[in-house]
Every structure is written in structure tokens, then in C-alpha cells.
């Protein structure tokens, strides 16, 4: 396992636009929360105890062959900008930025598998990939969980399963989360209805940037509400079934728009491109909204100046930390928005 700085330009696997149902499901993320039975949870632990946990977990991972080529990032020593880049790559959660003391993440170069240490729970193992394929991801993560659980004593009881800092995660400790792009449902104003139906199937909704953010660019994160009372595979099946329904509704909406309002859609897509190609200042929210229209344009055969994969790459590169790292300086929000617009103009000209 190595410790190194973060490289710009490598696109995480979850943005490669190759996965199943990738026209609607951008990525799937599966995580398991685990704690060590012989330490207090991070929120209640002393600094020394957090350090002990951090070292014990790293030591255990070093003894598992699968982690040999992984890189470890200790947030206590990592520069703020690098921390934020890992959050933008969805390797670390925004919450990991704010907690104090020894904490960090261990990740592979494709950003497909990572283990956060000392966030809300001692361990948060995660697998994240493009498209909709939670079953194979679960098999992979389950094997990782078993190998770590052989080396470390997990907090577990037969009745309540894996014990977590927040009881909302207790039981399986699992959350399966799909990042979906639903512009068809947003444009036909049926998204609320469809998401209400999903809620009835035990699936809850968040925005692109997680629990504390609003909805931008018709991107939604859908995940299982419950984590206890059913087996992991059954939870995956339930959410998968809700996602299948949503994907079907979104495809239907897109067809309806292409059939009834193709001219309006073309106008919307090319106007979005017009702003992207000429704007001199762009916020993240505005860029995501515009790129949402372009994404729909690409998938509807209206727009072919870029591929979805390239659009994904640009999207990551213009997020605040990546942009500042690329330009080699920290800036205020206004400057970031100006630089973003300049960068987007250049990238779309290539």
C-alpha cells in the first residue's frame, strides 16, 4: 500500500459511462458500515483511540493481498485541496472533511473500491462503479468484508446485526445508492409522482451531492431506506426493482418528448450548448444543469460534439477542488466560476 498525492486526469471508474443502463443510471454505490467491538465509535473516541483504530485498520488491510496496490490517504496530514478532490471523486464523504483527528481513506487507482476509516463509523467499505450492477458489486464487497472481519473484531450481535454509530445503519450496515439522471421525468413534470412511488418501495431520494444538498441537473441519488430486517441481497433486489421501474418511466418520458416536442428539446439542448460555449462565468450548479441538457441531447441523438464519457470527465475537472488543483492555485468563488467558464469553453473547442 502506498501513500501519494492525487493525480488529475484519471477518470474514476464510476464516470466511464460503460455500465448497464448507463444512459440513465450514472453509477451505483454500495457501502457497508462496520465498527470494531473493542473501541468506542469515532464520535465518542479520544484522539488516542482514533489513532489506535486508524493504525489497527491500516495494519489489517496491509495483511490482505487485495489491498496491496491501494493508496492510503491520512486526512490529518493531507492538504485540504487534496481532501476535497477525494470528496469530488466520491472516494471520501463530505463528513470526513469536518471530523477531527486521525481519519482517512484507502482506495484503488480506479476509485472502484475504497475503505474510509474513522468517519461516522470505524470502517465504511465502498464499491462504486458506472451503470446499474449492484449484484456483482455486492459479491466483491462481501468478500472484502469477510476478509477484513477475519482480521478485526467487528461490533456485531445476533439480534441487531452489525452495530453502527447511527441506528439507521444498524443490521446489514448496507446502503445501495444509485445516481440517476431523470431529465425526461423532470421535463414532463412526473418526477415527483415516480419518486413517491419509489418511496413506497422503500427507496429514498437525495440530491447529487448527498444528504445535505438540493437537486441539480435532474440528478438524483436513490437508496434503500432500511438496512435491517431483510438480507443484503433482498435489499438489493428491492431497490433494483424500483430502479427498473424508474428507468422504464424515464425512457417512456424521453420517447414522449421526442415524439411530441422534439423541436423544443433541440432548442433546449442547443441553447445549453450556446451558454456553455460562450459564458464567462459558470457556477457548479449552472454547469450541471446545462450538462444535464447536453447529456439528454447526446442520448437522444440531437447533440454529438462530445460523448457522455468526455462530458463526465469535464464535469469532474471543473468541480472546485479539481479546477484549483489543475490551475495550481486556490481562488475565491467568483474567480473559480470565471476560470470554470474559461476551462469549459476551451474543453468544448477541442
Amino acid at each position, binding site marked *: 500500500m502506498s501513500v501519494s498525492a492525487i493525480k488529475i486526469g484519471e477518470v474514476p471508474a464510476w464516470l466511464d459511462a460503460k455500465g448497464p443502463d448507463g444512459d440513465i443510471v450514472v453509477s451505483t454505490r454500495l457501502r457497508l458500515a462496520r465498527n470494531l467491538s473493542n473501541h468506542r465509535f469515532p*464520535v465518542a473516541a479520544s484522539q488516542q483511540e482514533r489513532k489506535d483504530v486508524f493504525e489497527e485498520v491500516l495494519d489489517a488491510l496491509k495483511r490482505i493481498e487485495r489491498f496491496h496496490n491501494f493508496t492510503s490517504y491520512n486526512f490529518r496530514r493531507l492538504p485540504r485541496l487534496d481532501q476535497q478532490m477525494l470528496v469530488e471523486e466520491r472516494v471520501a464523504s463530505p463528513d470526513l472533511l469536518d471530523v477531527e483527528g486521525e481519519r482517512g481513506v484507502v482506495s484503488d487507482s480506479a476509485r472502484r473500491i475504497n475503505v474510509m476509516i474513522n468517519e461516522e463509523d470505524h470502517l465504511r467499505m465502498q464499491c462504486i462503479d458506472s451503470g446499474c450492477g449492484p449484484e456483482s458489486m455486492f459479491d466483491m464487497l462481501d468478500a472484502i468484508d469477510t476478509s477484513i472481519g477475519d482480521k478485526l473484531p467487528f461490533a456485531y450481535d445476533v439480534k441487531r446485526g452489525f452495530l453502527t454509530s447511527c441506528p439507521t445503519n444498524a443490521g446489514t450496515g448496507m446502503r445501495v445508492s444509485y445516481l440517476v439522471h431523470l431529465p425526461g421525468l423532470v421535463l414532463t413534470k412526473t418526477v415527483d409522482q415516480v419518486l413517491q412511488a419509489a418511496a413506497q418501495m422503500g427507496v429514498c431520494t437525495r440530491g447529487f451531492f448527498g444528504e445535505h444538498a438540493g437537486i441539480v441537473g435532474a440528478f438524483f441519488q436513490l437508496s434503500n431506506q432500511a438496512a435491517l430486517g431483510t438480507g443484503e441481497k433482498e435489499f438489493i433486489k428491492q431497490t433494483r426493482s424500483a430502479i427498473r421501474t424508474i428507468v422504464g418511466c424515464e425512457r417512456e418520458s424521453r420517447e414522449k418528448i421526442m415524439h411530441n416536442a422534439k423541436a423544443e428539446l433541440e432548442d433546449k439542448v442547443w441553447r445549453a450548448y450556446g451558454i456553455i460555449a460562450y459564458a464567462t462565468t459558470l457556477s457548479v450548479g449552472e454547469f450541471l444543469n446545462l450538462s444535464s441538457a447536453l447529456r439528454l441531447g447526446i442520448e437522444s441523438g440531437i447533440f454529438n460534439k462530445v460523448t457522455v464519457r468526455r462530458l463526465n470527465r469535464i464535469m469532474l475537472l471543473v468541480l472546485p477542488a479539481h479546477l484549483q488543483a489543475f490551475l495550481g492555485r486556490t481562488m475565491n468563488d467568483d474567480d473559480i466560476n470565471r476560470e470554470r467558464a474559461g476551462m469549459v469553453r476551451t474543453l468544448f473547442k477541442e
Partner: protein
Amino acid sequence: MKKCDQCGMQPANIHVTHIVNGETTMLHMCEECAQKKGINISINVDAPLQIDHPAEGPPAVDTQCPACKLKLSEFRSKGRLGCASCYAAFEQEIDAVLVQVHGAREHKGKQYKGRHKVLPCDAEMDISELRKKLDAAIRNEEFEVAADLRDTISRMAGRGNAARKSEILSTKS
């Protein structure tokens, strides 16, 4: 699918859990009957996941977790537990939350087969207490548990228990 408790005709796709004074009752209704009862099923997509604690205000007896010393009132205000032992210390309260969030209170997923058995959080226990537990584990032939306890005791002894205690106290202030 289960039929609606109210009309007995339509499939029940709305499930409401009432928790009053620790007593849990479930209502299964169809959308129409739920709306008649004034239950709003629309969701706010911006809303973060929240725990509505079944009991509001300070608890009558502010129970404390024997291992990590977290108080029930602190769990109520922050929604976070301090260690694995809190689950036993606040059993009733946690069970109510589990039913509210998951609609269940019993784990049916992966069984943990790690070589370690569950131990209470020993962070604040004295070495003498841990030694007693070690003796008991050996008497009961729970050798895996004994091995974990032995490792914990040697780790604590190595670092100096007194120094550790003072550090724990200082982080609490």
C-alpha cells in the same frame, strides 16, 4: 399484498408505525384511506434522512452506558451512539428507533463469522475488570474471547492505564 386495515378491500401500500410510551402499533392502509386520515405521503426530495426520536424532551431517568458513559439524553439530542455497548444500555429506546426506521428490529442479513466474538467496549474499563473477564472466559473455555481480552490488556498495560484515563477525561471537557 396485505389488504387495507380500514376498508379491507384495497392493497395496503402505506404502513404507519405509532410508538406511544414505548408501545408500538402498526397500521396498514391503502392510499385513499390514508389520505382520509390526513396522512400526507408526498415526499420532499431535498429533505435529509432524519430520525424523529420517539420520545421528545429529557428522559425521566437519564440512563448512562456503563462502557462509554454516553447518556441517553445525549443520544436523543445527537442521534449517535458512543459504542457497541450502548445498544444494550439503551435497548428500549433503540428498538423503537429501529422499528421506526427499518420497520423491523431483528437482523436477517449476513452472520458475522469473524474469529472474534463481540466484546463490550472496554475503552474505559480498568485492567482489573478486564482480568476478571479474562479469568471467566478461560473458565468457560471461550478461548477466542480470552485471546482478545489478553491482547487488549497487554495493549493497555503497555501504554499505561493512568495516562490513558487522564487523556480520555481531558477530551470530554
